């Protein structure tokens, strides 16, 4: 099929799609052409490369889109993956922020109870939940303090609600005792930490990622917690839903770790970029012990459905306080194993691998965006670099990271803190060089700072 080029060397997409449709080389090509027709309706695409390959019966072609000439790898959050290239495929966009996406994710996850205390930069979530939950038959409370707020959430969950709270670092300090109790009492609960610069009251309207170890070790005992970190607004939505699902799956509190910039900075998000994930229903038992030690978390019993006991003290499977070493040992091993023996269900990261790269960037949250920008800029210049965006900060995606470290000699960990996640990477990196890219002055790490690590 000879194809004539226009003067500028480009072809209109309509022409190409129509030709492909009229004379499909294969069913696959036909499908591709259908997709182009659908997807490219808002785009101008230069397709001659694609055409020539399609004509030669080659593999699915790479296409270039004016909107995304750097041909970044598909990440799924801002566009759809097609033949190795990200094409913004949507016809409508929102100019929105992470707080809005978190609230939307919570509502879509079936959250029907929220309690929180005002704190910058998390208050927007509180205010939106106060406004939205009554409309869907839920309940939102502004507690007298953070302690009351998380306490109300725990009580409400035990009475059948699906609960969420949101705060910032200083609030996590006050949540500490109840985080421990939610772990001990096996209470599903989503805790949003919109990080701000610390220590102490620090900088209220200043981004930071200083709570990454705090949420991990912020309550006594050192038991595992789950913490997810979105790095885009659309991911704020998806990972909020995921957090609810994991909290039900493992009967435990789950953190969603964001920061001031992700929560409040507005960005352009395609209306169909919000990826829903299934959120399981709470497993309930009509009778029997409220706890089961060993194996998965037990189905829950809720107040009102039967006689139900709950305690934050060391207890047996009937929730009767116990000091019997055999019972207490089994309880505490259970709190650890129910999560850690299923860590593969939780571990989440995105790798963008260049097979020739010997340098790997690792980041998470707001800083991961700058990292991915840096990777795109480096590749335009012909440099080789890979990157990992860590989404499940806890448990650490060790399997994925180990695989990402293969053939890598140098790892750069970018984060807005003095190097808190770096130590986790060092532990897995064995004898590789691990360098920290850190800012603790309230400013964001910029792509240029990542690029300084490349030769």
């Amino acid at each position, binding site marked *: 099929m000879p194809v004539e080029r226009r003067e500028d060397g480009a072809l209109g997409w309509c022409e190409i799609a129509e030709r492909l449709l009229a004379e499909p080389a294969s069913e696959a090509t036909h499908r591709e052409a259908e997709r182009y027709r659908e997807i490219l309706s808002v785009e101008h695409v230069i397709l001659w490369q694609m055409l020539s390959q399609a004509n030669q019966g080659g593999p699915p072609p790479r296409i270039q889109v004016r909107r995304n000439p750097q041909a970044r790898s598909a990440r799924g959050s801002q566009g759809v993956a097609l033949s190795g290239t990200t094409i913004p495929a949507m016809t409508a966009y929102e100019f929105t922020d992470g707080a809005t996406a978190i609230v939307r994710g919570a509502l879509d996850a079936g959250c029907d*109870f929220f309690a929180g205390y005002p704190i910058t930069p998390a208050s927007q979530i509180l205010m939106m939940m106060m406004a939205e939950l009554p409309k869907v038959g839920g309940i939102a409370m502004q507690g007298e303090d953070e302690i009351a707020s998380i306490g109300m959430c725990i009580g409400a969950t035990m009475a059948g609600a699906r609960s969420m709270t949101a705060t910032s670092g200083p609030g996590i300090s006050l949540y500490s005792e109840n985080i421990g109790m939610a772990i001990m009492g096996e209470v599903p609960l989503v805790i949003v930490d919109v990080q701000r610069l610390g220590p102490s009251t620090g900088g209220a309207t200043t981004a930071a990622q200083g709570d990454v170890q705090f949420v991990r070790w912020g309550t006594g005992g050192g038991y595992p917690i789950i913490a997810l970190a979105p790095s885009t607004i659309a991911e704020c939505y998806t990972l909020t839903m995921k957090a609810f699902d994991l909290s039900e799956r493992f009967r435990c509190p789950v953190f969603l770790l964001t920061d001031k910039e992700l929560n409040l900075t507005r960005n352009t998000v395609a209306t169909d970029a919000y990826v829903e994930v299934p959120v399981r229903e709470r497993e309930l038992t009509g009778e029997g012990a409220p706890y089961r030690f060993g194996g998965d978390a037990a189905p829950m019993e809720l107040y009102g459905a039967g006689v139900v006991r709950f305690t934050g003290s060391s207890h047996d499977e009937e929730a009767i306080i116990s000091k019997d070493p055999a019972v207490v040992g089994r309880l505490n091993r259970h709190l650890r194993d129910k999560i850690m023996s299923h860590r593969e269900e939780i571990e989440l990261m995105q790798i963008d691998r260049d097979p020739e790269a010997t340098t790997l960037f690792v980041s998470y949250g707001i800083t991961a965006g700058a990292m991915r920008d840096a990777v795109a800029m480096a590749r335009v210049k012909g440099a080789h670099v890979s990157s990992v965006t860590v989404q499940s900060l806890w448990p650490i995606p060790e399997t994925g990271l180990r695989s990402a470290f293969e053939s890598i000699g140098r790892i750069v960990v970018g984060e807005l803190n003095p190097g808190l996640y770096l130590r986790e990477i060092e532990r897995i990196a064995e004898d590789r060089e691990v360098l920290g890219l850190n800012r603790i002055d309230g400013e964001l790490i910029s792509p240029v700072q990542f690029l300084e690590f490349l030769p």
Partner: protein
Amino acid sequence: MTVDTYRNDSAYPFCPGCGHGSILDALNEALLMQQINPAKLVIVSDIGCSGLSDQYFGTSAFHGLHGRSLTYATGIKLARPDLHVVVIMGDGGTGIGGAHLLNAARRNIGLTLLVFNNMNYGMTGGQHSTTTPFGSITSTTPGGNLEHPLDICATVGVNGAAYVYRGTNFDKDLPERIVEGMQTPGFAVLDIWDLCTAYFVPNNTFGKRSLIAAQEELGLPAGVLYQREADEYAAAYRSAAERLRNDRPRKTRALVPELTSSLDRTVNLMVAGSAGGKVRSAAKMIAEAAIRSNLYAAQRDDYPITVKTGHSVSQVVLSPHPIDFPGMDEPDVLVILSSEGLRKAARYLGGMKGSVFVVPEFAGVETGGTVTVLDPKSGPGRVAKSELALAVLAGAVVHERLLEVEALRKAVGAYPAFAEKNLAAIEAGLAMAGVS
């Protein structure tokens, strides 16, 4: 089916002579008088000797952290208003959980609180508590307590509790009073004094007679002290929420990129002005105009906690590509609207290579960039202070050929309440920039 006891088979663990067991017996009697379904009753307790109580009942129970029982109980009651929730706290809980006590009263939430008030911390070694009488000897007041006891009843009474009673574990009518509390819609508090025979009694040669006498001596009278009819919170919330049920859920505006832009590179735009100058909403209009022009936009705001004073700076990134990094190392286009804005933007001025747009006041600003003065007086009409940000921004972005005028008009046209003023601002900006 009649319930003949709410107790289980376990014997109480309390010290000989301790009053806690008799209060629990009174609770059992009160429950029997009401014949409440054990599954519809939650006993919420926390820490201290009184916190052991729930284990001796065959009802639902929640045993939580010290002083926090009212918070868990509030969550339970809000989620399931049909349940009876009885909260058991020691006098210690009224100290560490004082804020919760006050706010449960203010809300008048439908809980029945029994304070097992033995005037010291029995579980941890007899330390003084918020209710230890002045002068009493405890393990932490060896020379006599220098603090005055909390008047629990007056505190919750003046702050909105629906039912308030003070008595002792020796009161014969305690079960009836507990029933009264449980039957009162709203927050019921029973401050029940009893003896800690392990610590307070031996340290202070105290007994039943002195316990009863102490109430009069301290001016803390016994009896039903407050009884009022007021809306119970969980019910009030539901009826208030019912009125919002038909309100439309919040929805973010969908922007369709029906226009195009010739912008083929990422441009960092910074606008620096003062709080109250609508800097952020003007920046938002520019961003939305960009999205309507098939570009991507991000907006990062910087402002002090005191939102009505000081600077207001917005950074807007405009790009033909998705924006993964919403910040900027330095602006390509800087708009300075006020001296507060100038102070925040000052650090960028020297290194700037792009365009700086200023109002006439700052015409002499020193910068490596190209300065363009936009004079609000150069337009056909007067530009209101509240419209200055949008006017100057519009002039700047059109002057820089970042966006088409049509996109700006479409962006502000989407907000009918402000459209007229905003359209006028855009026209004024175009006139100022000489691009109309």
